[in-house]
């Protein structure tokens, strides 16, 4: 791995951690905690993306230990983002947003068993409340847990994919060309 790609890992992980400040400023119910993972994958491939996801989870766990069991979700996100980059799905919002919705479903499917088995579906206040809503609607416990995760992830991952698309298109071509996957991800190579 080149030094540039090695440096990209902590920078992308720190972006994921710092975006919470931007989300707080606009008071939107989003996490954007996989932005760095998706961005690193779209720029540099799955190895860098997975490493970014693992580091993001590890450092996030120092602040809130409940993040660590969800490291598997970060790995799945990196692999999905790699497939999306290979297919050039970051070329426009029209392709990126539906791909983000797909990731939302996949992320909810991955996080549901972890949330159910480890935390009894109580990972964050918002998810616990939507899970309670699912129970009130008559869903079985696992179904209600998926409902809570789905509501949290579906929009979040679509916004994250759209944001990464904006970043990839906002990078000057010469800067993007220094990363091995960037131009292919936006369909320019």
């Amino acid at each position: 791995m080149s030094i540039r790609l090695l440096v990209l890992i902590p920078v992308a992980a720190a972006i994921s951690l710092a975006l919470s400040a931007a989300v707080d400023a606009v008071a939107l119910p989003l996490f954007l905690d996989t932005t760095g993972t998706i961005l690193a994958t779209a720029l540099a491939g799955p190895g860098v993306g997975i490493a970014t996801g693992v580091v993001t989870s590890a450092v996030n766990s120092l602040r809130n230990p409940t993040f660590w069991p969800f490291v598997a979700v970060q790995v799945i996100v990196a692999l999905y983002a790699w497939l999306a980059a290979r297919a050039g799905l970051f070329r426009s919002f029209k392709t990126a947003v539906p791909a983000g919705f797909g990731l939302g479903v996949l992320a909810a499917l991955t996080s549901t068993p972890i949330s159910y088995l480890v935390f009894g579906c109580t990972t964050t206040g918002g998810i616990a409340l939507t899970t309670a809503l699912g129970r009130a609607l008559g869903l079985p416990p696992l179904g209600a847990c998926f409902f809570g995760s789905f509501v949290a992830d579906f929009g979040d991952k679509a916004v994250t994919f759209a944001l990464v698309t904006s970043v990839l298109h906002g990078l000057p071509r010469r800067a993007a060309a220094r990363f091995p996957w960037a131009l292919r991800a936006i369909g320019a190579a």
Partner: protein
Amino acid sequence: MTRLHPFTLLAIAGALPALAWLLPAPVGGLATAVVALGLTLTGGARLTRTAVLTAAPFWLFLLLLHDLPTSIAIGLRVTTMVASFVWVVGALPPPRLVEAMVAAGWSASVAYVFAATLAAAPVLRARARRIADAQRCRGLSARGGLAHRLRALWALALPLILSSLHEVDERALALETRRLVPGARRTPLSPPPDRGAERLARWGLVAACAAALGWRLR
């Protein structure tokens, strides 16, 4: 406790939640939660308060979603995990962990990635707040409907991400001049001492977790 080798601290923090899940509830979870909360007391009442305040919402939502025995069983496990992590974060300064990793023969690149993320996260958070202040001065409003808020999010997130990516080349150059290339070995300045008794204790913890798993599976 803070004098223990970083790997020993991590082994204790990893073994307690593992045992909480493996030992039968609620007694196993209660025992591990008591030990984990006791460990936080060795770092001062502030750590214990942090652990209790972090675990408290889980108990609230568990009682909302589950019956009492299930809530107690899961709640004690989550409390063990939270208290163990809070304790190890308080007892283990990251630079000491990096020194231990380098001394143990880990790649300097791995140690760099971990340490650089810890250092970069607060810097980027502060930059995000400065960007938010600057955009507000230019008239950005975070009020209104969903589309308006998303536009505001873009105005905050894009400068943050793009400026961070532009720093990658600068950082790479700085590392290359310090010869931090993949595969290079570094010499730790003050590696934490790793006593034989501690190495034995770490293997003991691994054996205890394996024994608990075997006992549960029989």
